């Protein structure tokens, strides 16, 4: 639906309506669409388990507790987040991680936390990044240690209570945790 709205703005030049008020109307309808979409998703999400059927399985109690603590029983849905990691990490001591989202960063609707969970690491809840709208976007890069081949979870919490995630399976050649 975002794509549709963008297309409309291109047409704006051809319309007799003053451009500013047209754009304002477009923005208003985009907000309306987004809001209604969220409500529908929330209704659907309420009846599904915390993770979707195609998400990586929870391997142990510790990861289950971490996911519960982050999500607070809200569904963790895949989307709006991109976790970029190498498929194969030669050296588990230094594995690059890049987390990006397309979620808004406004005063009323922003990404308030980005969590990094590495399933088979000794300290699975590796990092939490608490953000504010002043950052303008939610985009974090860092380098982490990985003990062995496992799933990595990037879980994002918004100020409005949504929880979004993306997952990467990383093959680790050299243990980086001791």
């Amino acid at each position, binding site marked *: 639906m975002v794509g549709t709205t963008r297309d409309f703005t291109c047409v704006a030049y051809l319309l007799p309506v003053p451009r500013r008020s047209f754009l304002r109307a477009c923005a208003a309808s985009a907000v309306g669409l987004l809001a209604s979409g969220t409500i529908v998703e929330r209704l659907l999400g309420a009846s599904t388990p915390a993770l979707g059927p195609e998400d990586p399985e929870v391997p142990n109690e510790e990861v289950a507790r971490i996911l519960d603590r982050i999500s607070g029983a809200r569904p963790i849905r895949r989307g709006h987040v991109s976790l970029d990691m190498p498929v194969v990490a030669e050296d588990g*001591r*230094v*594995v690059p991680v890049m987390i990006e989202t397309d979620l808004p*960063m406004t005063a009323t609707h922003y990404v308030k936390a980005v969590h990094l969970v*590495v399933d088979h*690491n*000794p*300290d699975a*809840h*590796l*990092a*939490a*990044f*608490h*953000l*504010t709208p*002043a*950052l*303008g*976007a*939610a*985009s*974090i*890069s*860092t*380098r*982490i*240690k990985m003990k062995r081949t496992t799933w990595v979870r990037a879980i994002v919490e918004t100020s409005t209570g949504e929880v979004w995630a993306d997952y990467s399976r990383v093959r680790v050649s050299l243990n*980086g*945790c*001791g």
Partner: protein
Amino acid sequence: MTTAIGEARIKVPDQITRGDLITVNSIVSHPMDTGFFRNADGVPIPAYFIKQVVVTYGGDEVARFEWTSGISRDPVVSFTLRADKEAPLTMTWTDNQGATFKHSVNIGFASA
């Protein structure tokens, strides 16, 4: 290259215009010991790592990171910032032994 623990660098673009979405790159020198390794004599090396990073911009806290020893040695972190005022950007790293390391850069706008 030998750098003292806590020595830090923050890099922001050279040319910034008000309202730009800039990328901030940072690095701090720290061993980030997990506590799982032993030294050559078989003595365990205790856990020693940065556990918190606080970022302020013009005095306002804009981000706070909670870390474990799972972050790599000499931690790097990059994030975005909306450059909407000329003010210092300060990062404060705190390790699990209570030491704090602070570094600032000034966000200034190119004169038009």
